[in-house]
């Protein structure tokens, strides 16, 4: 099975047609979808028509970009003018987007073919892949287990090779957690590096847009297409241009930091062993590995929770007033939780973000990338994490997202890479956490790791 980069090259070089690869993926979707529930809409006729048009353009020597003719699908929160964007919800059921997301527009301009829209947690506010309205998405490695969320369909569909890559979003781990649980590569960019314009918001201070794909190289390719300033998203003003050459740097001379605390506490033995194994691989590739004392991540995590909760509740307040009964129980309860924080607490959490990042940068002085597990364990089962809106839900959610939240608060880039499998054959991933705007460096390390290992090439068997 080809990666995105390989498929794009094969189509460009006339070795494969866009129609051929689109048909192949549609056949896989037809087979896997009843098991995975990864798609919310499959656009068969439109995809084949777009693929045929892409082939015709190539035949006349008109290649419009690096994704020309490549079929992709994305989380159902990216707006396209005149198309549904239901955001995994009942409230936006039937909602037609009035504009096109900048990230999607750039992917379309690069020539991609659209396969359809992917499953997600309701309003991207859930870390497991459960959805009261759509039913849960299922993990291709074991359909009884969660995909992780909120980019549940993105991870499941990439892992099962139903699409070459998929956009997800990451506000509190929603790219990295599903990438970890489903064994794919996920890229959460630095906050503000990729425009969020006309993408469903959850928390405007923490939201990031990025891909899940089969390799670091594929993430670099998508990054090169979607990153950069956009007048529709003022946070992107002045961000550095994407440096593709920097994604191909060698690890020689790079320094990797391993936290002494928090991210290494309470790990299951197979996660700890794979972390050690990865460090040995990086040393073999010429990187220097050092221990690092990060500032207290529990305080940063609390600040992240406050910012996320208040901003999400603020965005949803009109519907909480009028249509609270149309939310799933867990999402409604979490949105209600955001009512508990005072304005002063919220603004203190926002104002502390700069000093907290300064403290982090002081701690990682001389370090290019910090490595950390994504979770203490591989994917749990759907049943054991089906906490709904019950009394233990908030604690359960916080446990799953423990290694995620501080990174969103600090706005750092992360490449999540498959690093091996648990004793039960389930994927386990690691986070390569870069410096602000050091996205390309994190990808370069992941890319080097994937030249030395084959974890990212494992494909789940059809059950």
């Amino acid at each position, binding site marked *: 099975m080809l990666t995105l980069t390989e498929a794009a090259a094969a189509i460009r070089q006339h070795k494969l047609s866009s129609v051929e690869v689109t048909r192949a993926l549609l056949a896989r979707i037809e087979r896997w979808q009843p098991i995975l529930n990864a798609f919310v809409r499959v656009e068969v006729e439109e995809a084949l028509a777009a693929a045929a048009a892409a082939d015709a353009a190539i035949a006349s020597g008109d290649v419009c970009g690096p994704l020309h003719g490549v079929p992709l699908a994305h989380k159902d929160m990216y707006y396209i003018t005149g198309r549904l964007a239901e955001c995994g919800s009942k409230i936006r059921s039937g909602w037609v987007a009035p504009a096109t997301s900048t990230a999607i527009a750039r992917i379309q301009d690069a020539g991609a073919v659209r396969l359809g829209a992917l499953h997600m947690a309701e309003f991207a506010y859930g870390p497991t892949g459960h959805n009261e309205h759509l039913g849960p998405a299922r993990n291709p490695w074991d359909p009884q287990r969660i995909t992780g969320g909120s980019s549940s369909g993105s991870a499941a569909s990439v892992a099962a090779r139903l699409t070459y890559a998929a956009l997800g979003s990451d506000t509190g781990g929603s790219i990295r957690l599903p990438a970890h649980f489903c064994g794919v590569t996920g890229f959460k960019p*630095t*906050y*503000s590096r990729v425009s969020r314009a006309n993408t469903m918001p959850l928390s405007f*201070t923490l939201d990031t847009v990025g891909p899940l794909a089969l390799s670091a190289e594929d993430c670099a390719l998508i990054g090169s297409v979607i990153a950069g300033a956009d007048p529709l998203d003022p*946070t992107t003003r*002045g961000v*550095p241009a994407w440096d593709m050459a920097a994604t191909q740097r060698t690890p020689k001379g790079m320094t990797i930091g391993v936290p002494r605390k928090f991210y290494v506490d309470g790990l299951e033995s197979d996660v700890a062993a794979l972390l050690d194994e990865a460090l040995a691989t990086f040393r073999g590739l010429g990187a220097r590995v050092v221990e690092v004392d990060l*500032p*207290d991540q*529990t*305080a940063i*995590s*609390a*600040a992240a*929770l*406050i910012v996320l*909760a208040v901003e999400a*509740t603020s965005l949803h*307040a009109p519907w*909480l*007033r009028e249509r*609270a009964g149309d939310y799933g129980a867990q999402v409604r*309860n979490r949105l*209600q*939780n955001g*009512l*508990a*924080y*005072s304005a002063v*607490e919220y*603004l*203190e*959490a*926002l*104002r*502390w*973000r*700069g*000093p*907290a*990042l*300064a*403290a982090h*940068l*002081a*701690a990682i002085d*001389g370090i*290019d990338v910090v490595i950390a597990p994504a979770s203490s364990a591989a994917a749990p089962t759907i049943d054991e994490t089906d906490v709904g809106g019950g*009394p233990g*839900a*908030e*604690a359960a959610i916080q446990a799953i997202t423990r290694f995620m939240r501080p990174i969103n608060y600090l*706005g750092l880039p992360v490449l999540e890479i498959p690093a091996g499998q648990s004793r039960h054959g389930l994927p386990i991933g690691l986070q390569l956490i870069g*410096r*602000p*705007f*050091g996205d390309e*460096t994190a990808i370069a390390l992941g890319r080097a790791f994937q030249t030395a290992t084959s974890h990212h090439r494992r494909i789940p068997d059809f059950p």
Partner: protein
Amino acid sequence: LKLTVLATIIRIEFGCHMIDPTSGLAAPHLHQEEAVMPNEVTPERVAAIAAAARVPLEQTSAARVAKAVNPTVTRFAAQMIALPLEVEPATYAVVAGQGMITK
């Protein structure tokens, strides 16, 4: 404004305030105030904020919310954050811009 923000960061970094040089935390003597500051979320507080936001909330929900958020509020309060007057949310963007330089 840029100069003010940069000056603030420099003050944070070089410890010219009663603030930890890098973390923005208050000096230890401020802990004496802790005893008089409530840091536990009550259902009444949740109900009052919900009413102010015009979001209907049942009493049982207010109790559930209070219980759910208490660990977060308590942890954040324990951090005793006391930032210099000049630090604002946009300070983050300035620090992030400086942080892109690797070594």
